[in-house]
C-alpha cells in the first residue's frame, strides 16, 4: 500500500498515512529511539451504537446494552479453544482491549517480534469465533466485572451524572450493560454486530515505534481482505431534547465521605474536524481558568474545606454529545455546586481573565508536546481523533486560531445553569 510521509516540526515526529485497499485506514508514527512498539486497531463501534440498520429501507433494531463490550471480550476466543492472549504471550507482547462510548479497540505493546504480533492482532480481530458455550462462560466473567463497578463510587457517581443529564442518549447506560441485559446476548447477535461494525472501512490501525513500513504493508495485504459489500451501517439518530433529565441524583454506597460529580450538558453539538478540535482547545482553556489550582474557585473551595486533593475537572466533547464536569470528595456537595455556579455567573458578567487565558494557552501547548512521550496515549489519541475527522498533526494551526473572544463565546454557550446537574454518592 502507498503511504504518505508527513513530518511535523513542532513535535519533531514523522507520520506515515494511507488507506489500505480493504478500506482500512493506517497510520504509523515512526518512533526511532523507543524500545517499545505499540499497535492498536480501533472500530467506530461502542456502547452508544445500540440501535441501527444496515439498509435504508429497513426498520432500526435495538440490541442489548453492553453488547459492544461483550463482543470485545469474546473476540479473544480462538477456534482451537485457546484465547488470543496465548499467542501474544509467546511473542512477549502485552495485549489488551477496551470499549468506550464510541469505539472498541484491540491493542498490544511489545519490545520484540513486532511483525508476528501485528499478524496475530489482525488475524484474531478479523476472525470471530462465538459458540453458545463460550458466550455463557463470558456472562459469568462480565457479570463479575459489572459487580465490581457497582461497588466503585467514582464509576457510579459518573454514570449517575450522565443519567441526570441525558434523557434518551444511550451514553447514559453503563458500557458493560447490566447483568440482565447481557443475559439476552447470544452468538447470533454477536455475529450480527461483528459483521456490520468490524468492517475495514469503519476501522483504523495505528502503529507507533521503529517499525519497517514496507513490512507492515506486506502483512496488511496478506491479512486484511476487501469485503464484498461496502460498509453500510446507519445508526439511529438520537433524539435528545435540549434539556436535562433531572437536576439532582444520589445513591448510597460504602464510602468515607460524599463523592460528587457535577457538570453542564452542552447542547451546542454537531461539530467535527477543525471546528471540533478548536472547541476542544477552548473548553480545556476555560476549564483551566475556571477550576485549576490557580483559580479563585478552586482556592475558595479548598480553603473552606469543601474539596480536597481529589478535586478534578474533565471534559468530553464529541460530535453528538458534549459535557464538562467537576468532581471529587466533598463533605457538602450542594454547597460546592452552588459555589461553582456562582463563579460561572461571575465570569459571565466580568469575562474570563485575559492573563489567565494566555497562561492556559501555554499549558495546552505543553500538554500537546508531552503527549508524544507515551506511545500508548498518543496512539489512542490519534485513533479517537481520527473518527472525529481531526488530525493531531494539525494541532498548531488550530491552536493558533484560538482567540480570547472565541473562547468567551464558547464559555457563554456551554455554561448554562439550566443545564447543570449534580450527582452525589453518599455514605451509608
Amino acid at each position, binding site marked *: 500500500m502507498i503511504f504518505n510521509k508527513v513530518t511535523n516540526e*513542532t513535535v519533531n515526529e514523522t507520520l506515515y498515512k494511507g488507506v489500505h485497499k480493504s478500506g482500512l485506514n493506517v497510520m504509523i508514527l515512526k518512533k526511532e529511539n523507543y*524500545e517499545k512498539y505499540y499497535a492498536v486497531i480501533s472500530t467506530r463501534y461502542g456502547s452508544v451504537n445500540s440501535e441501527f440498520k444496515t439498509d435504508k429501507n429497513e426498520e432500526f433494531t435495538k440490541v442489548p446494552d453492553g453488547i459492544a463490550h461483550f463482543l470485545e471480550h469474546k473476540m479473544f476466543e480462538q477456534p482451537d479453544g485457546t*484465547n488470543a492472549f496465548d499467542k501474544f504471550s509467546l511473542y*512477549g507482547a502485552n495485549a489488551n482491549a477496551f470499549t468506550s462510548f464510541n469505539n472498541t479497540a484491540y491493542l498490544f*505493546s511489545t519490545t520484540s517480534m513486532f511483525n508476528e504480533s501485528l499478524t496475530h492482532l489482525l488475524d484474531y480481530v478479523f476472525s470471530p469465533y462465538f459458540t453458545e458455550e463460550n458466550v455463557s462462560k463470558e456472562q459469568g*466473567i462480565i457479570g463479575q466485572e459489572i459487580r465490581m463497578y457497582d461497588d466503585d463510587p467514582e464509576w457510579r457517581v459518573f454514570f449517575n451524572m450522565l443519567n441526570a443529564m441525558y434523557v434518551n442518549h444511550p451514553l447514559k447506560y453503563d458500557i458493560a450493560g447490566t447483568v440482565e441485559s447481557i443475559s439476552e446476548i447470544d452468538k447470533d447477535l454477536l455475529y450480527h454486530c461483528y459483521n456490520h461494525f468490524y468492517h475495514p472501512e469503519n476501522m483504523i490501525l495505528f502503529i507507533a515505534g521503529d517499525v519497517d513500513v514496507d513490512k507492515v504493508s506486506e502483512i496488511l495485504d496478506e491479512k486484511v481482505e476487501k469485503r464484498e459489500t461496502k460498509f453500510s451501517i446507519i445508526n439511529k439518530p438520537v433524539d435528545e431534547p435540549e434539556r436535562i433529565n433531572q437536576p439532582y441524583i444520589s445513591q448510597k454506597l*460504602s*464510602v468515607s465521605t460524599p463523592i460528587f460529580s457535577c457538570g453542564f450538558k452542552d447542547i451546542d453539538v454537531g461539530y467535527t474536524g477543525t471546528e471540533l478540535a478548536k472547541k476542544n482547545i477552548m473548553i480545556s482553556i476555560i476549564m483551566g481558568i475556571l477550576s485549576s489550582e490557580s483559580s479563585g474557585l478552586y482556592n475558595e473551595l479548598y480553603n473552606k474545606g469543601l474539596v480536597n486533593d481529589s478535586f478534578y475537572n474533565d471534559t468530553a466533547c464529541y460530535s453528538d454529545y458534549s459535557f464538562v464536569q467537576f468532581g471529587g470528595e466533598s463533605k457538602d456537595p450542594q454547597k460546592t455546586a452552588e459555589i461553582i455556579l456562582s463563579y460561572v455567573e461571575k465570569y459571565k458578567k466580568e469575562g474570563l481573565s485575559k492573563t489567565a487565558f494566555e497562561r492556559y494557552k501555554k499549558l495546552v501547548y505543553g500538554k500537546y508536546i508531552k503527549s508524544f512521550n507515551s506511545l500508548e496515549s498518543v496512539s489512542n489519541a490519534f485513533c479517537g481523533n481520527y473518527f472525529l475527522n481531526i488530525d493531531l498533526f494539525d494541532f498548531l494551526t488550530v491552536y493558533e486560531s484560538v482567540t480570547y473572544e472565541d473562547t468567551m463565546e464558547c464559555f457563554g454557550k456551554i455554561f448554562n445553569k439550566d443545564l447543570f446537574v449534580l450527582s452525589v454518592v453518599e455514605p451509608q
Partner: protein
Amino acid sequence: MEKTKISSGVNLYTLNINKFKTFTVSMYIHRKLNESEASLNALLPFVMKRGSKKYPDTVAVSETLESLYGGFFDCFIRKKGENQIIAFNFEFVAPQYIPNDSDYVNGVFGFINDMLFNPLTNGNSFNEEYVEREKQNLKDYIEGIINDKKEYANKRCIEELCEGEAYAVYEYGSVENLDKINAKNLYEHYVEIMKTSVIDVFVIGDIDSSPLKNALADSIKRDDVKEGYHIAKIKAPCDKVKVVTDKMEVNQGKLAMGFTTETAFDDEDSYALTMFNSVYGSGAHSKLFNNVREKLSLCYYAYSRLDKHKGIMLVNSGVEFENFEKAYNEILAQLECVKKGEISDMEITAAKKYLVNMLRSLNDSAFSIEDFYLSGVITGNITTIEEYIENIEKVTKEQIVEVAKKVKLNTVYYLTGKGE
C-alpha cells in the same frame, strides 16, 4: 546513569538522553519506616507543596507551572522495604520544544529549587493554616482508601500479615498520629530530616542539571550522615494460617491472600521468584488468570504480586460471596501445581517474555527508569535493566519449582457483605 556525590548521604543521579519530549527531576528523602514518625514524613511534602518563599501560595505555585507550559509537580509517599520515601516529582517540556523563550530553563530551575530548598516558614515554624488544611486533606486521603475496595482489601491483608512489624505501618501514616502534629513540630522534623536522611536526586532528559546541583550543595548543610537505607527483615513463615473477615455494604466480595516467600531481594533465587510469580499469577498467561477467571469463570480479576523487599506475595481477587471457597481452593490448587512442577514449556516461555518485555519497556519512561534504579540503590544491588533481563533468561523450571516450595500461605482476608 551518572552518580555525583554532593555531600554525605546526598547523591545526584543524572541520565542525559534526548528521546523524551520532557525532562524529569525527582528528589527522594529516605526515612526508616516507623509508627511514631510516619505521619510527620507523610504530611511534610504536602505542606511544602503549598508554598515556598518565592511562590508563597497555591495560586503562585500553579500559575508558575501553567506559565512554564504546564509543568508537572507533585509529591508522593512510597514504601520500599522499611524505607518510607518522601518523593518530589517534577516534569517539564524539554527546552528544544520551547522556541523564543530564552528565560524558560532559568524559570524552571528557579521554581524547582525554591520549592525544594526554600519552604515558606514563619520563624521556626511552617505556615499554620497550611499545616492544618493539609492535615485534613491527608486525613481524607487515609479515610478514603475504603472507597477503593480492591486496594483496601490489599492494604488490610498486608496489615494483618505483618502485624507488629514496622512494615505494617501504612506509608501515609495514621489519622491518630496526624492529630499530634502542629506547624512547629513539623518544622523541627523538617530541619532534622534534612540533616540526617539519605537523599537521592534524579535528573533524566536532555538538560544541564548544574543549577540543581549547585542548589543542592548550597542548601543541604550537614555533618556525616550515619543513616543508610533500611532493608526490611524478610517475613518469617508461620505455623497457623490467620483468617480475618471485615463486613461492609458491598455487592462483590474481595479476597486477599498473603504468602511468605522466604526469599530476599538480593538472594540468588530472587530472579527465580520473579519468574515464579509470572507463571503463577501475573499476566494473561498466568495460571491464576487462565484457571480462576477463564476456566472457572469465577471472577474478572485474580492476580498475584510480590513485594520483594519484604519477601511476601499477595493474591487479590473480586468474587461473589458464595464463591469465596471455590476461588480460595483454586488459588491454592494452582500454587500446588507449580510446586509439583506442572508447568509447561509454553508457560515458561510466556512468563519469561512477559518479564523481558516489561523490563525493556521501562526504558521508554523516565519515571520508570528512575524507579528501577532507586530500588537498586536502596538494596545496594545495582544492576542495569539489561543485566536483570539476562538473569531472568537464565532461570530454569527446576529453580521455579524450588522457589515455589518456599511460598507458604500466611493470612487470608475476606471483605464480605453485611448480611453474609
